[in-house]
């Protein structure tokens, strides 16, 4: 068992897969010689060389196009889109090309590739470098979407994503890069579409993702001291969506809260609300409550950014008020 940062886990996860499979290649802006603008990919160029680790121009369409063409013809590319906000300049490739190729060709052309990206706020980068776009991604049929919250999950879900025969968008959370966690020795391979119950309590179920996971856990700690006991679920994967774990927990706790960093409208929690209210309405003892970033662009001033994102205080206060 070793302690790694979430940042170090990125390179560890990629390296694990590149060592295993020579068809795994990695491309993106500043990912090689510079080791990534967040230093997440340091050492990969040195180990795997410039044929397999490609420093690209600032050309997100060329990057995802190259990844797609390579995936169609036998490689297993991992492409970096530096900031998740930049998906907006290459959305054609994500939404129209990569996601739809298999269906449009009735199974003839698959795109086994991973697009990994730095998602989310916390670094005071303002409205164009801080967004949580996981809800854009899950709105497109044909792509899988994962967002790990710990170094171990990052390595394991990276491996699962690379080995998956379908395209996977892997959202790393920028504010989690310095966070640390225990990582077991040896190969780590996780499974897409599996949520994880991190703590169990009988009063309510809280479903969170990425940076919202440690915040939900902190809120749960505080409320436990007041006698309110929460189940906290790290969703980990939006597509496939592990509704079974959520429904099972709601059957036990009878209350549900989602904690979402994406802006409010059509955030991932809305889909979970919809599913739970259709399929487990009679399990509920009260309304489902979504705790989200408001439907706003993000501001760069630290106090304003902090006000926008759900934090442990807001999560705890909202849950406490709702449970009465």
């Amino acid at each position: 068992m070793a302690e790694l940062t979430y940042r170090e886990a990125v390179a560890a996860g990629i390296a694990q897969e590149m060592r295993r499979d020579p068809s795994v290649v990695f491309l993106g802006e500043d990912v090689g010689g510079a080791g990534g603008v967040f230093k997440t990919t340091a050492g990969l160029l040195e180990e795997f060389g410039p044929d397999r680790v490609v420093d690209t121009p600032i050309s997100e369409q060329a990057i995802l196009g190259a990844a797609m063409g390579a995936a169609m013809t036998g490689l297993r590319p991992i492409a970096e889109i530096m900031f998740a906000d930049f998906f907006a300049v290459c959305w054609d490739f994500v939404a129209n090309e990569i996601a739809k190729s298999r269906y449009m060709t009735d199974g003839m052309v698959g795109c086994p590739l991973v697009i990994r990206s730095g998602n989310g706020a916390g670094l005071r980068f303002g409205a164009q470098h801080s967004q949580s776009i996981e809800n854009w991604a899950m709105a497109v049929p044909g792509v899988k979407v994962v967002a790990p919250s710990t170094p171990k999950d990052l390595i394991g879900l990276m491996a699962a994503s690379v080995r998956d025969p379908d395209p996977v968008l892997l959202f790393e959370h920028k504010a989690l890069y310095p966070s640390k966690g225990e990582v077991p020795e040896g190969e780590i391979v996780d499974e897409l579409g599996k949520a994880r119950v991190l703590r169990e309590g009988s009063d309510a179920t809280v479903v969170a993702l990425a940076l919202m996971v440690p915040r939900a856990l902190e809120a749960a700690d505080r409320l436990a001291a007041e006698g309110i006991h929460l189940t906290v679920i790290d969703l980990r994967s939006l597509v496939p969506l592990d509704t079974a774990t959520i429904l099972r927990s709601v059957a036990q706790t009878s209350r549900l809260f989602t904690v979402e960093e994406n802006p409010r409208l059509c955030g991932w929690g809305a889909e979970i609300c919809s599913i739970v209210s259709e399929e487990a309405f009679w399990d509920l003892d009260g309304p489902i409550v979504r705790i989200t970033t408001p439907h706003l662009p993000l501001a760069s001033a630290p106090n304003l950014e902090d006000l926008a994102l759900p934090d442990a205080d807001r999560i705890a206060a909202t849950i406490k008020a709702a449970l009465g």
Partner: protein
Amino acid sequence: MPVSGAPYGAHQIVLPEPFDESLKDAPIDLETRIEMFRKQHQIRQLEKRLYTLFLEGLVRGTSHQSMGMEATSAAFGAALRPDDYSFNTYRGHGHTVARGVPPEPIIAELLGKATGLVGGKGGSMHLTSVEHGMMGSYAIIGAHLCIANGAAWSAKLRGTDQVAVAFFGDGATNIGAFHEAVNYAANYRLGTIFVCENNLYMEYTPIAEVTPVTHPAADRAPAYGLDAAIVDGNDADAVYLAARTAIERARTGGGPSIIEAKTYRHGGHSRADPGKYRPDPEVEAWLEHDPIPMYHQRLLDLGVGEDRLTAIIQEVAAEIDRAAEAAKSAPEPPAEALWTNVWANGGSQWRN
């Protein structure tokens, strides 16, 4: 800012250059020429039949035809190796035929039948046949230029000498993906061949009215350190020679090429478009500059008998007849097909 002074439909006309008769003596073997002759007829006759099927109300949705533009597809079809990759636009029936895809699954696809090339899920704009190296038809302008780079990169890393061809129209040269793709290919010396079929109209608007250079693809090539070839896209021999040079360069690690093939569509942009924005003298001149009768005469001049050419035309016609009848009588896709092949496991499940 320069704006067009001409009213809609009254812009300056662009006439074709006369065919280069010296190409008769080009070093192209006769069987290759016969193959290009056959492919041009396969494309022309298929497109005509698809148009008839549209008029009969059997082809739904839209489609984009390439009558008048057959020579470029046919020449590349003859010049490429079976394991090379090609990427089409949504005006891709011809490029699909040129790689050897038979007409029946193409017609069936446009008729929305289960026997369609992609099971009725793609339609006219998404014809794909990996077994023929035809890696798809792409309906968002420019994207497949970037994707072709990936196939060329993959070939390089896998140590094969396959090349990747991306066909596109003049309109694509003004979208960012074109510039990203050409820069990328040139920088990494990928074996991508960018083939612009310049038919003078981006859709309904003349390309010259929205582009500050005369040759929308070729004139951009120097910005990326590339030379470009400008050829008569209605002369299969001219395209074939340019294709052979570019393919050889790509195969031997010499990097990408840009070829601009000047051509003209006989019809409008799509089904909904009668093409009335094109001045009559221009249309008439280009209808005269038809690739197919010219090539027929060239083969006669080279000593091929009229009987052999006629036999080819009749074979193609019979094949199209058979294909159309088979496609018409094929079943619709089963309802279950709606739910298949979103994922590699064959299904579409997104939750447990």
